[in-house]
């Protein structure tokens, strides 16, 4: 991964389906096969993907809560897993400017806290996972966007990949997925610096709809940029992304629309379930049911995205996506499923 350029093939191997092809989330993505690999069954929920439960949660840890973007659930889960030794390290994104992230390995609560907050440029997290699991033994957690988690699942399901990435004990054993709507190209820096001048950016946020703004906090001021101006900088690949809620993670976390300080949480696997339960029991989290209207809204948002991708006129762009005809018709036809 090159900052601002995405993936670059350095040495073409001549294989039509080598590792790059095998791992990339934008090459052949067989959704039913990956569902089977991750969950052992096919998805029943076409809107949110396989899941055990959906809820809202927030951290009760004031240290995390004080700096978290929303409910601090991701940081709390990682900090808890490290605290109790469920994992040895977590690959997270750390940001100097709250816009772009650098992948980093956190091994304790302090290092997790350094990574709190969202970033808006694609971060080469997977390359860090690749690098660190090659060198080190142990149980790793990865926090990533849908494409990153998908890539790791594709690696785990690949017959040739080294075992250190497999989802077993002593390997990459926990995948926490972030909700994601798009990432921006680094060209957005020109827009930000035009807006804030030389001021130091403290935080960037895209509040859930209907806000439709890109908010930049500096020391003295909060700038609101219309989201349409920012959309010009969306990485093209994001426009064909089918997955808003990180459908192959163990547990997915996003914002709650219309309610500050809370996260939406989708528990997908037993690993995710156990972690959430244990963190809750240990007093790291507060959990509540997600209101039906909010759940419906989330499903509709996800379906809208999927419908948009399925309706993509340039079929070449979405040819990577293999899903069943049944699921497709359900996506197109499903209205207010929840």
């Amino acid at each position, binding site marked *: 991964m*090159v900052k601002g*350029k995405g993936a*670059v*093939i*350095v*040495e073409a*191997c*001549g*294989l039509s389906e*080598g*590792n*790059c092809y*095998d791992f990339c989330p934008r090459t052949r993505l067989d959704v039913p096969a990956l569902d089977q690999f991750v969950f052992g069954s096919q998805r029943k929920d076409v809107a949110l993907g396989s899941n055990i439960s959906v809820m809202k949660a927030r951290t009760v840890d004031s240290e995390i809560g004080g700096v978290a973007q929303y409910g601090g659930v991701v940081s709390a889960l990682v900090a808890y897993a490290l605290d109790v030794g469920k994992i040895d390290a977590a690959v997270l994104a750390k940001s100097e400017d709250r816009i772009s992230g650098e992948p980093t390995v956190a091994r304790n609560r302090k290092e997790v806290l350094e990574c709190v907050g969202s970033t808006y440029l694609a971060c080469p997290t997977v390359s860090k996972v*690749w690098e660190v*699991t*090659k*060198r080190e033994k142990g149980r790793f957690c990865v926090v990533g966007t849908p494409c990153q988690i998908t890539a790791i699942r594709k690696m785990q399901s*690949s*017959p*040739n*990949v*080294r*075992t*250190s990435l497999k989802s077993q004990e002593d390997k990459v054993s926990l995948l926490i997925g972030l909700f994601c709507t798009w990432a921006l190209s680094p060209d957005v820096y020109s827009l930000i610096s035009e807006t804030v001048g030389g001021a130091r950016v403290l935080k960037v946020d895209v509040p859930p709809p209907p806000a439709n703004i890109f908010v930049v906090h500096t020391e003295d001021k909060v700038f609101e940029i219309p989201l349409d101006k920012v959309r010009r900088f969306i990485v093209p690949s994001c426009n064909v992304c089918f997955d808003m809620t990180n459908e192959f993670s163990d547990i997915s976390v996003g914002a709650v629309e219309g309610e500050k300080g809370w996260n939406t949480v989708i528990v997908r696997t037993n690993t995710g379930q156990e972690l959430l339960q244990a963190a809750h029991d240990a007093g790291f989290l507060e959990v509540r049911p997600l209101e039906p209207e909010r759940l419906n809204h989330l499903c509709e948002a996800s379906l809208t995205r999927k419908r948009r991708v399925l309706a993509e006129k340039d079929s070449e762009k979405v040819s990577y996506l293999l899903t069943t005809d049944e699921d497709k018709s359900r996506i197109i036809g499903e209205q207010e499923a929840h």
Partner: protein
Amino acid sequence: MHVTNAESKKRVLLMGDEAIARGALEAGVNFCTGYPGNPASEIIDTLAKAAEKFGVYVEWSVNEIVALEAAGAAAASGLRALTAMKNLGADVCSDFLMTVNLSGTKGGFVLVTGDDPLAHSTTTELDTRNYARLADIPLLEPATVQEAKDMTKFAFDFSEELGLICMLRMVTRLSHSRGVVTLGPVQTQKKTAEFSSQEMWTSGSSSITCMLHSVLHEKMRNAESKFEESEFNKYVGREDAEFLIMTSGTGWLYSLEAVKLLNLQNDVGILKLGTTWPLPTKLLTTHLKHAKEVLFIEETDPFLEQNVKIAAAELLVDGIAPVKFYGQKSNHVRGEFGAGTGELSVDTVVKALMGIRKIEYSPRKSCYAEKVQETVGSYLPPRSMSFCAGCPHRASFWSIYKAIKWHGQEVIVAGDIGCYSLGLLPTGFSVEKTLHCMGAGLGVANGFGNMKRFGLDKPVIAVAGDSTFYHACLPALINAKWNKANISFVILDNNTTAMTGHQPHPGTGVNALGDSSPRVHIEDICKSIVSDVRVVDPFELQNATQNVYEMIQTEGLKVLILRHECPLNEPRGWQEKPAVYVDQEKCVGDECGCVRFCSRVFKCPGMTWDYVKRKARIDESICTRCRLCADICPQGAIKVEETT
């Protein structure tokens, strides 16, 4: 070592370059300088080993012109001085050579050049004999290792006698061949250098120059008359042979052998010339009188061929009958790549004689080649030259290669002279796109980096080694700064002059004798010229790549020193490091989704293939434990042994 230990009259086996060193010691040489380069490096290497014992001053100089100038000063002070260099070195020092021929010498002053026909380890087949003619100085061409020694000793005496620098031309086959040499006594008498303030040592200007030029001509007339009687010229064959081979250097033994093979001893005479400039005209006349046909056998250029033809034209006036000449011009003497290219061999002479004299000759049965192919053909796969196992240049070029890929657009990489010239080849990922002479990488980058106004707007990387940096890069670096060239200058610092045999340079902290000497730090020099100077270990692949990438993103002049010691600097030093091995359980062999990235892309000779298990394997006998392969294996199957 025979050169320093053997007594007089003893017969010993010496390499050509060692024989030169011995000849210099027998001549009582006092001051020796040079710059390493194939095939001449071993001359100074050998003299350095003898320096202490015989009280000789020996230095590796920063480049050839400084070497010749320093030796020139010693010779002008009455000492005997020798400078040795490869053919391209003669280009570097030619500026001084073209003036010191006029200013002359007091002590014996000998320039030894090592030419490299077939360019085994050189970027040109330059024939330095032309410099002797250009500078108008005496030229000697040894034909055997014994002659290499004897001519060197003679050259000192002769130079002193004439008051003129003498040149001795070696070629790779002679420099690196071993032959039996009868030694003479080493002269060890002490000499005092003297250069008085009353003296003038100059080539002058205007009328003084012309006067000195005239003096030079007189010296050369003197030289020619002495050469008429030289024992280094000899004739074999019938006194009235109508067919004559004229030869010099290695051509002498090849000619003898070819004539014998073709059984032409009774028909063909061979005139072997050891003193080829100025030519001994009277001697030539003697033999041209009985010859009707002359074949020239000499390495590289038609030097003898042209000069003898000129002499023969003059002799026509004296009634010498017209002679038919054969050689490169007539295309009878030609190598694989045509006349005047490649190396001479017995075959070259045999073929020339067969063509001229219409002789049929086959040294072996015609089916021989087919049988060879049948028997061993499959065991001798063609192999490209490669960086050694553990070479830091492999890592450096990978970083450059990767950074260019990251950049995603064309980048011009100008190469230079050293092991890293292999950056042109797949072992260096074919990154380099230009290669000429020492310092030319940064020099041409000055042009490439200043053509944006003409539409050539590509990042430019110039690559140079540490020794090359000191040798030839400073003017180009200053020029780049002065004229605002856009260049990322990458210095590959492996703390040695590796390609020529690990000679020290100004950055190594030792001199030619291995004694401690002040280091001249590359970054100190660069920082005084360029503001952006970075030093990175190329084995930190990611960091090195990132730095190259950042540099090519920005305009201006930047310096990146990729510093990692050549593993051959400390033979077997790597044995202290943890071993690197392939965990064959983890290696997925042919199933590797990157198609054996380790050996296919990295091509480290230490990375081999286990044909039984069909997995990667490390050849422990040459692995230097650099760990680079462990970094790049996609599967993490290459491991570094854990130490306690």
